[in-house]
Structure formats: structure tokens, C-alpha cells
């Protein structure tokens, strides 16, 4: 296969960026997208230039570190991670535009790499159950109906890649935040901190500069973990219940 790449190149967070065009020839359709980029980079290094920087680690779709906007869609529009895209998903002769994930709280570090520590900060605000090590009762003391366990799992599979925020016209990370809120609200273990959790996580989300949800649904459409929009419905419901119980961002 032969393709043309238009790649966003930006030396660091403070320098301006621009698109640079790279022709790509003789690519096998069985290659993964990132393997194709590896080959492009080998060529760039041989020419004595700076290769394209992009994040990548597990290369099996689970660690969540990779993420490139391809032709305007985070992860390229197959609802998989970028590392799980294969060249057979593209057409011969196609021109692909590669950009970093863009959202206000995701500053570009270099080329296609962004800083997503904002997502860790949302988690740090309340995305946990305070179970100190040593205090746990027997695992079967707390029965969890299969339906709840399955529902919790459907949300818990979020890989934290941030594609939801990059896809959203408002730059909202509500799908990411809602997935954790819903996962823990489904489980009996998550009940004691249920309401302060949702309030605290959402306040942090807003403070970091992520936008609000206006139901575009782009987030769920690009999500490699297939987190449903119900995560956002759930976060709103939890928030209402929290408000009725007197929890607010001041008490969280």
C-alpha cells in the first residue's frame, strides 16, 4: 500500500507547530498503524531528521497510552485504540492527517504526545474506595448480584486514553468520569462514598477546564472500551441524588 501522511510536528509545548507531509510506500495491509509509523520513523532517522514522537506502550489495546487523531477522529474512527488499527482499514493512496489529542487540559508535549495527567487528577479526587489494606472481610461476605457485577465491569473497562475528551466538541471528559462513578455506584463496596465521590470528581473535572456534556455522543462513538453514554446519564443521576442528600462541592 502507498499513502501520504500529513503529520502535526511541534518540538515542544512552547513552540508553534505545523503540518509536515511524508509519503509512505510499500506498506503491508497486515501492519498495525503504529508499525507503519515505526517504519516511517526509521526512514526519518536515516535522513538524519527528528522522528515523529508518539505515545505507545502495550500495543494490544489495553494500557491506553496511545492516541492519535486520524483524519479528525481520535483513534481513527474504528472504536479501537490507535495501536489496534490495521492498515487494511485504510484505502490505497489515501491521505491521512495525524494530530495529537486536543482538549484544553491536554497540553501538547511534542508532536503527537499530550500530557493527560488531568485524568489522574480527576481520579485522585474520588475515584477510589477507601479500603485500607488489612481491613477487608472475606470476598464472599459481600454478595454482588451477577447483573451488578457485569454492569460495573462494563464501566470499569475504561482504559483512560482520553479519546472521549478529544472527540467532544466541548472538550468534556464526562464519559471518563462517569465510567468510574458508575462502576463504583453499581457495587455494594462503593456505597459509603458514593455521593461525595461523584461531587468531588465532577468538581475536579470542571476545575481542570474540561467542558460540559451537551449530548453529542462523539465520546462514546470513539471509545475503544465501548463505554456507553449511559455513564453520563448515570453521573447526572448520581449528582442529583447527591444534591438531594445535601452533598455539594463545598462538602466533598
Amino acid at each position, binding site marked *: 500500500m502507498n499513502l501520504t501522511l500529513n503529520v502535526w510536528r511541534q518540538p515542544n509545548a512552547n513552540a508553534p507547530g505545523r503540518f509536515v507531509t511524508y509519503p509512505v510506500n510499500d506498506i503491508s495491509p497486515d501492519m498495525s498503524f503504529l508499525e507503519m509509523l515505526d517504519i516511517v520513523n526509521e526512514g526519518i532517522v536515516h535522513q538524519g531528521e527528528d522522528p515523529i514522537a508518539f505515545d505507545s*506502550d*502495550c500495543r494490544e489495546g489495553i494500557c491506553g497510552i496511545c492516541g492519535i487523531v486520524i483524519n479528525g477522529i481520535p483513534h481513527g474512527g474504528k472504536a479501537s485504540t490507535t495501536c489496534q488499527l490495521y492498515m487494511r482499514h485504510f484505502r490505497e493512496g489515501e491521505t491521512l492527517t495525524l494530530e495529537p489529542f486536543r482538549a484544553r487540559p491536554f497540553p501538547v508535549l511534542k508532536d503527537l504526545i499530550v500530557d493527560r495527567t488531568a485524568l489522574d487528577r480527576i481520579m485522585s479526587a474520588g475515584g477510589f474506595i477507601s*479500603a485500607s*489494606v488489612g481491613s477487608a472481610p472475606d*470476598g464472599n461476605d459481600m454478595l*454482588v448480584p451477577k447483573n451488578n457485577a457485569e454492569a460495573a465491569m462494563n464501566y470499569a*473497562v475504561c482504559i483512560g486514553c482520553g479519546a472521549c475528551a478529544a472527540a467532544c466538541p466541548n472538550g468534556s471528559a464526562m464519559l471518563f468520569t462517569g465510567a468510574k462513578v458508575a462502576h463504583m455506584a453499581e457495587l455494594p463496596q462503593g456505597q459509603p462514598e458514593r455521593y461525595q465521590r461523584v461531587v468531588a470528581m465532577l468538581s475536579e473535572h470542571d476545575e481542570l477546564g474540561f467542558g460540559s456534556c451537551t449530548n453529542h455522543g462523539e465520546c462514546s462513538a470513539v471509545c475503544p472500551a465501548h463505554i456507553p453514554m449511559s455513564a453520563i446519564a448515570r453521573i447526572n443521576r448520581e449528582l442529583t441524588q447527591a444534591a438531594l442528600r445535601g452533598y455539594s462541592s463545598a462538602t466533598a
Partner: protein
Amino acid sequence: MTTVIETAPQVATSTKPLWYVSDQTLDAHVPAGPLDRKWDTSKADMKLVAPHNRRKHTIIVVGTGLAGGAAAAVLGEQGYNVLNFCYQDSPRRAHSIAAQGGINAAKNYRNDGDSIWRLFMDTVKGGDYRSREANVYRLAQLSIDIIDQCVASGVPFAREYSGYLDTRSFGGAQVARTFYARGQTGQQLLLGVYSSLVRQMDRGMVKMFPRQEMLDLVLVDGVARGILARDLVTGEIKSYAADAVVLCTGGYGNVFFLSTYARGANATAVWRAHKRGALFANPCFTQIHPTCIPVKGDYQSKLTLISESVRNDGRVWVPKKAGDNRPPNEIPEEDRDYYLERMYPSYGNLAPRDISSRAAKRVCDEGRGVGPGGYGVYLDLRDAINRLGKKVIEERYGNLMEMYEQITDENPYEVPLRIYPATHYTMGGLWVDYKLMSNVPGLFVGGEANFSDHGANRLGASALLQGLADGYWVLPATLPDYIATAKPEPITTQDEAFAEAENEIQAKIRRLLAVNGSKTVATFHRELGHIMWDYVGMARSEESLVSALSKIRHLREQYWRDVRVSGGPEELNQQLEHALRVADFLELAELMAIDALARDESCGAHFRVEHQTAEGEAERDDERFAYVAAWGYNGAEPPILVKEPLVYENVKLAVRSYK
């Protein structure tokens, strides 16, 4: 340390022996007393640090996987000042996340005959009697609490309709003791650990340093007192001082280039520690996992595992006749060889990993392999789908099947999966005593980075177990004991040891960038991988290992003459990151080959073709090799082998049989 020269083989071009042998042995400080009381006895003797004094002590934890993340979270919870490092952008990315199948625990919820003793025995036997008895028993004991802790922290384990925890079976065991969360158990356990970690970050007890890679260990007066890390965004080399250093940096399987490891996984932290004096134990024990998606082409950057749990329901086969090119579904039952069921009737498709991998290699070497290149075997779900229905199989392995289809463009519900062995785990690692401290005082090692629990072969669903046992329970007990006993003096990064180490690192980086040769780092890494896979892989011989040694040395010499690393030192430079890692792999590879040569027996995953039974199974030599081979770095001189004799007080060494 006194050393005696053993008549070790030489490489043709050198007059030196390949290694020296120390006349001293290592003491693991295993407490006396009955096996089931050892951990309690040990804990009872440990010293404590009072709560108000804990915040005065700084502990560095490198790595945020199950072992590192859990240790950092618990030590932070206890009140220590914890500095936690990872090379990824977030602690949630550590490669524990990719573990699929499950975690073993001797809960015996199914009343199928499981017990702590049985999990212990299965693990010792699975490791082919090359692990330390007391450590393995502790692992089995802790398995019970681990499940409870994970449930409490919100891990959505699979449940029965009744709401009780569900389990499944796994390789090398005849009981169903594996707890799981679909095919993403590692992810869910890691996110559980990560949630404990972010809670401590929120409380200010754990300071997180993402995108920082440890490049050296700093010793002051022979004691581990800090690390140097490169800030991967700015390129700055930073110094950090502490009262103790914990390495939970994973395994070194990427020395094979193609593996199921994350691309960034590397041996630098443990190798640097080794060069500073930490002993490296059993480096040749590397696990080749039987069920990975076969290699497609030269461009391939990594291999992907399909969880061994699929062997619960899938049947492994190849055509009976070599050269049978019919599509799998057109090959009738009588022309199929379900070779694992035939060769190992009592364990069948669930024979341990080393045995299953070698069996796959054997049938492929006979010309009966399937798929492009002939290096693959079928893993067939047809019978399970007919028996249980597609929905049940989807529920159990849905995400794995989706991943398989994405990679291969084949539908595994309709045609059998194709699998082949790939490098997956390293049982070897830094030597540690019973308290997980290396021979360097103040340097602790947990998880895959140490060598202690899996002997010569790890059983499935035991890596997650060991990571959490070390991180949640063992290290948080033994580190305070060290601090209370050793009473480390306050120290800052102004100590000259930090400046010296930094100068060395800066010089090395300058040297790498100055080579400006003709071949990329990846080219060298791939070449090293070929050497390791072909000569130090699933089957090894004296001949292959000696030739590996000269090839590795030649490649390393070429590397420093001809590698091309673009960019500068003080910027985000992924070529330089990779170049530093490969430089260390090129040194570690040599020690792996030497260890494989020195261990003139077959055991577990270490298969020396000179030592096999008539049926082609590994043949151990307990009289000569019932020891841990711990290697000391010796500069330009050959490494020194120090032995830790393996004393089995409770287990009778036997020939491993899965027939």
C-alpha cells in the same frame, strides 16, 4: 568474596573462562520453624516505626504495576513519604494491565480439594523444584487475603448468579482456583491498585513522578540511598535521595525484541542495580507462553497473547499429516492430532506453559504447523461452542476474541484460532532474601523484577498473585523493619555519590549520541532478538549458547560503533530512550547465555537439548543444580556465580509428570 575458577567453557576468541564460581553460598535468611509458621514468626520478629516517625522517612518505589503501585500505596497509607516513579504518562499504564486470565487463590470456595498446601505444591512443582520453598508457601498463604482486599477495593470479579465469586481453572492445576474479571483481570487488579495509589496521592503521601525513567541506583557506603532518573519530557537527569529503594520494574523479556511485553518494558533499572552490586539470579529462566498470535512479518513490533484461560474451553491440535493444507474446518476428526490431550491425558490442554510451548514447537518442527510460515497450531473452540453455546463463550472470552479478530482479520467463532509460543515472562531477576531485600542493603525488589517465587517456570495466574503479595503485604512489612533496624542517617542529593553517578550517565548519553553510525536502534534490537530467540530460546545447547555469546559480543561492539541516535540529550527523545535500554539489553543478554550454559541440566522453561528423557521432557539434575544461580557483576572480568542451595524441608523432589 573468594572465588575459584571452574573449568568453564571458553569462547574461541578469549583465553578467559566464561565465569568464576564463588566458594561462598548465599543465605536467604529464611526463619526457622514449621513452614506454615515461618511468615508469622518472621513478622513477630520485625521491628516497627512509630506512626509519628514514619513521615520522616522517604522511600523510593520504582514502578507502578501491581507490586510497585501496591507497595507505594500501602507505604503511603502507613505514613511514609513515598516517591513513586514510572516511565509511562500515568501509573495506570504499567504492564500488569495486560494480564488477561486471572489470579490464583487457595480459597477452596468450590470445595474441589484446594488448600494453601495444594497451591504451594502446584507452584513448586510447576516451577520444576527451582524456587525457594518458604517464599512459595508465603505466596500461597497470602493468596487468600489478596482476593478479599481486591474485592473490597472494588474489583468487579466475575460472579455466579447467586452473587458469589466465580472461579475457573488454569494450566498446571487440577482445581478451579482462578478468580477473574472477563479476560481483563490484570487491568481490573491494576486499576484497583491505581485507585489506592491516587487516594494516597490525594492525601499527599505518595508523590508521583510519571514520564521519569530510572537510569541508575545510587549507593552511599554500600547502602542503597537513591536513584537517578531521566525526565523523559525535558531530558534532565534528576537525583532523588531516600532511606530505602524498592524496584518493581518488571521483567526483561524484551531482550528477545518480539514479546508480549509492553514496548517500553526494559531491564535498565535492574541491570543498573546489578552493576552497582546487586546479584542477578537465574537470568536464563525465561517463560515462553504457548498461546500467542503467530508472527506475521519482519515489520512486527510485538506479539499479542491470547489468555491461557482459553485452553479451558479450546482444544489444541494440528493435522496428523505434515503438509495437510486443507482449511481447518475441512479436516475431519480422524485427521486431527489433539497432541496435548494425547501426550498429557490428565492435564490435557491445561498442561503447564513450558511443556505446552515445547510441544507446539515439536509438532511445528515436524512440519505439521499451520498458517503462513508453518509456525502455528490451532486452538479450537468449536466443541465448546457446540456444548455451551456461543453466548457463554462470548461472556468468558469476548474481548479476547474481538482482539484476535482485529489483529488477524479472522473470526475465531468460525475458524480455530492460530497460536504459537512467544516470550512472555522472566522468572529470573534480582536476587532477594526472604524479606525481599537484595544483597545490597536498603535495596528491595518486588514482583517480576525479583526471582523468588516461580522457580524455572511460572504457572498461569500466579504473576498477578505474586505482584500483589509482594506489594500489598510483604514489602510493607519488611521495609519498616529495615528502616527501624538499619536506622539510615539523613541524606540529601548533595552527597557526592549522586554527582558521580550523574557524570557517568551524562558521559554515556554523550557517547551514544556521538556515534552517529548507520543503523537505527531498532535494527540492533531486532538483531539481538533474533540471536536470543534462535540460540537462547525454547531449546538451548552448549553449541548454540557458545555461538550466541560470540554473536552478542560482536553485536554489542558494533552497536557502540555504528548505532544512529538522532536528536539531543535535553529534549523529549524517544530514540535516546530506546538506545539506553538496548545498550543494557546487550549486556544482560550475555549473562543470560552464560547462565544457560552454566546450568547444565534442563528444568522448567530452561531446556538444554543434551538433557532430555526419551519422550523429550526436561531432565533435571538435582544433585548438581538444586541451587539458585546468583551472578555478581565483575567489571570487565567474567561474572562470579554465587549459589544459594535450595533446601527443601517439606517437599520431596520428584520428576514432574502431567501425564
